[in-house]
Structures are given as structure tokens and as C-alpha cells.
């Protein structure tokens, strides 16, 4: 039962950082898009890559959560 609590804490606390990071990334991308709408194509690929790499941190928390739940 303790590991259930630990898994919940791991994914819950571990989602804070990537949440802030994703929010910052998206806000800056939208800002850039608002200033320069023609740059949408050029922004798209680095934007997706940046979000994916930021999200990886949250995925690590998910890994720990799954490890705690199932092992």
C-alpha cells in the first residue's frame, strides 16, 4: 500500500516541472507566432521537438511510478 502512495506522489510531483516547462514553451511559441505568422512552418518542427524533450522529464516520473506500482 505504501508503494501506491509513493507512485501517486512520484507522478504528481514529477508532473509539476514539465507542466511549467511546457507552459513556458507553448507561450513563447504562441508569442512568436503572433508576432510573425508567416514563421509557422519554420517554428513547427523545433516546437514539437522541444515539447517532446520537455515531456520526457514527466515520462521519467511515469516510469518511476510504474516501477513502484508493478514491481
Amino acid at each position, binding site marked *: 500500500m505504501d508503494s501506491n502512495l509513493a507512485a501517486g506522489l512520484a507522478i504528481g510531483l514529477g508532473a509539476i516541472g514539465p507542466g511549467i516547462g511546457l507552459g513556458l514553451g507553448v507561450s513563447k511559441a504562441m508569442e512568436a507566432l503572433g508576432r510573425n505568422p508567416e514563421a509557422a512552418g519554420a517554428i513547427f518542427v523545433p516546437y514539437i521537438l522541444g515539447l517532446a524533450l520537455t515531456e*520526457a522529464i514527466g*515520462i521519467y516520473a*511515469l*516510469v518511476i511510478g510504474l516501477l513502484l506500482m508493478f514491481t
Partner: protein
Amino acid sequence: MQSALELPIELMAGIISGSTSRWRSYAALILGRFLMILVANWVGLLPGVGTIGITHVDEAGHEAVIPIVRPASADLNFTLGLAIVAFVMFVYWGVRAHGGWGYLKELMGQPLYMAPLMLPINLISEFSRLISLSMRLFGNIFAGEVLIATMLALTTAVVFVLPLAFFVPAVFLGLELLFGLVQALVFALLAMTYISVAIAEQSAGHDNDHGEADVAHADDPHAAGAAPA
């Protein structure tokens, strides 16, 4: 119909051909990977996949349904296999572009006396790509499945009071369609970027070390720019 089917291919082909000048050598791998993950993600949203199965009762008396058809991306074996193939691909391209010794030199970092510190760090970062690639796809699709199941269970419990069960899961199904596309795109893009980074890393400091590899893509303006972590 045909143009709808060609839409993701054209999107992906445009991104691939814009990446590096040597895109032809790995375009087929990345495109095939993208379509395979896309289908694997969306198959899990069909009704009956993962829910129709054989009921199995274990010794303790717990009942569990073993599905006949499972969504592929919600299984870690599938995504880990894909990530291992991607890992082998970018190590192969890196070794092919730099030579084995050149690739090792990349791992050891620029001032040679820092090698004992940099080598483990770079090795860990190479292998963490494997973990993050596979767990990202698995986590997103698995979490999507669980999310839809939870929403369905929550809304079905009150279906006689509020008929929400007909609308709320549909919203999340639409969201999962989008996530399936985005995750397939992310996997293919990351694999492509890792390969193009592995090909193009060496241009900075030591140009004279590897002769023919430099000549092959010395006229490559995008290669150095497309480098993430």
C-alpha cells in the same frame, strides 16, 4: 479519399526533405516508422480492441479478461522494440559517417583530458534516448486508454441521472485521435533528428580528422542547425 490518405505522408515527406541534404538515405525508414506508429495508435481507439477477450480466473479467484486484440502502442514490448531499432539506426549512421574511432571521439568530448568524466555522461545520455523514446510512446497511449476507460466508467455510473456517457468519452476519443497523430509525429521526428545529429556532429572543431565523411556533406547548411540535446 486518396488525398486524405496521402495527407500525413506529404506532411512527413515535407518535414524530412527539409531536414538535411542527405534525407534520401533514411527517408523510407522514418516514413515507414511514422505510418506504423500512427496505425498502431489509432487501432487502439476502435471499439472492441482491448475489451473483447477470454475471461481468465486465477487461483485466488480474481477474474481478468485477456484481450484477443490489444492496442499495440499500449504495450511496452512494442515501443521498446521500435526504440531499439531507432537506437541501432542512429548509432549505425553515426559510425558510418565518422568511422568507429571518430564516433568514440565524439563520445569522449572535446578536451581529451575530460574524457573520463564526459564518456559516462554521454553514454548515459545516449541510452536515456532509448528509454525516453519508448516510454514516451507507451506512456501516452497507455494513459489515453486508461483515461477513456475511466471517463466511461465514471459517466456510466450516473447514466440514469445525467446521460453524459454519450458525450464525455467522445470528447476524449477525439483528443486521443490528435494525441496518436502527435506521438507518431514526435517519434518519427526525434528518430530523424537523432540520425541527422549523429551524421552531422563532427563539423565544429576537428575538420581534418575524417576525410571522406566531410566531403560527403560539407555543403550541408541545415545539418548543424537541427541539433537538439
